[in-house]
């Protein structure tokens, strides 16, 4: 067995058992809180849903299926970084395969736990959230790789590549992250929010989450790359689908405000970045 195979086996086992542990902990916690009013009787915890038990014909079989899916999902998350450890077309192919397999397992577990029913909207929402999470992790890793590459360039005395026009290519990860938040938070809030008191949709999203995300991505891209007009533009464009929701409607001017917040934070961070660089150059000249 090669070192790579050993690494895969180790991560599959660790990830799988962590998945099983989390499932057991989840059942015990939810059971303790909801089923027994703070006085848990662990002998009568409900480990599987009624729907899964009915589908498989017995609770034992349903539990075995649930354990298998949870183990597989944990293992899939455990090996998540390994497909990136290659190069060329193999990297893209393996990443896509991992994304598809993990997505299938998420759906399967969602169905077993009755998180998604037959409604296509619920399936799409779960897949959307999963995709967003996957993309976020991938983008964060990509930014880490870029920082790693900057270190290598510096150690090899290589010049940094000249930036693309208006930092378009460099700001793409920030823009994607921002778009993910703006496109998915609202559908998520539609599901989670109470119908009579829409705190998420009317208060937290427009007044806290969206401005915060716009400011954060504008600031982070400005500090890392300088002026990035793509980020505020993305804030406006990706906000527009939010206007399509009929309940608790938003206004298009809100999108302008978020774009201006992203632009302001980006400009300020770009100035800070330039000021820091000048300071470093002066320090180096001395």
């Amino acid at each position, binding site marked *: 067995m090669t070192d*790579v195979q050993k690494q895969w086996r180790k991560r599959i086992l660790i990830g799988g058992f962590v998945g099983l542990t989390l499932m057991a902990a989840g059942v015990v916690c939810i059971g303790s809180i909801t089923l027994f009013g703070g006085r848990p009787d662990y002998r009568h915890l409900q480990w599987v849903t009624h729907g899964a038990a009915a589908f498989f014909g017995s609770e034992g079989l349903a539990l075995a299926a649930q354990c298998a899916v949870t183990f597989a999902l944990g293992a899939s998350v455990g090996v998540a970084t390994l497909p*990136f*450890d*290659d*190069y*060329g077309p193999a*990297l*893209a192919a393996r*990443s896509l395969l991992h994304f598809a397999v993990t997505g299938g397992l998420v759906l399967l577990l969602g169905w077993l736990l009755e998180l998604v029913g037959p409604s296509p909207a619920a399936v799409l929402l779960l897949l959307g959230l999963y995709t967003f999470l996957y993309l976020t992790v991938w983008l964060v*890793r*990509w930014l880490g*790789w*870029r920082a*790693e*590459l900057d*270190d*290598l*360039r510096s*150690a*090899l005395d*290589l010049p940094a*590549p000249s930036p693309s026009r208006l930092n378009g*290519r460099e700001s*793409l990860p920030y823009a994607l992250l921002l778009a993910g938040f703006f496109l998915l938070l609202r559908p998520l809030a539609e599901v989670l929010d109470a119908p009579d008191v829409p705190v998420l949709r009317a208060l937290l999203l427009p007044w806290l989450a969206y401005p915060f995300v716009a400011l954060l991505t504008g600031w982070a891209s400005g500090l890392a790359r300088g002026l990035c007009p793509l980020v505020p533009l993305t804030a406006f464009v990706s906000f527009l689908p939010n206007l399509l929701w009929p309940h608790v409607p938003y206004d298009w001017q809100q999108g302008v405000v978020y774009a201006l917040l992203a632009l302001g934070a980006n400009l300020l961070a770009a100035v800070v970045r330039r000021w820091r660089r000048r300071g470093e150059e002066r320090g180096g000249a001395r």
Partner: protein
Amino acid sequence: MKVEVKIDPARAEPTVTVTAPALTEEVRALVRSLEPRSLTGWRGEEAIPLEPGDLLRCYAANKGVYAQSPVGEYLVKLRLYELEERLNPGVFVRISHSEIVNLKQVTALDLSLAGTIKMTLAGGAAVCWVSRRYVPKIKQALGLGRGRRA
């Protein structure tokens, strides 16, 4: 480790003697670093001495191992891991399961949006792809991060 230098005008060439209580990996590495590092490349029946510093990269392809210099490519009758052991580990680094590059010949590094790292050698004389699994090794060779050189 104690280093002692003795100057003897009667000697025709420098001689290095390593004295150690046991043949540890550290001693082996020291001996390797002192050994002459010439390589022989083959073009058909013709054997050509190769200066490692001039090489751009060594790679495995078509069941053979090749060394590429700015003037051409040569078959090397060694396995890639044997080459890796022979070459200076501070200069030559494995970047994928089939390739070793001369870090002094790297002229550009680029990261694609897909996450692949493209390495350009000698201004475009060779282009290769870095496997992410080997990035820690490159960092170690350059004295970066956790694997900082002593």
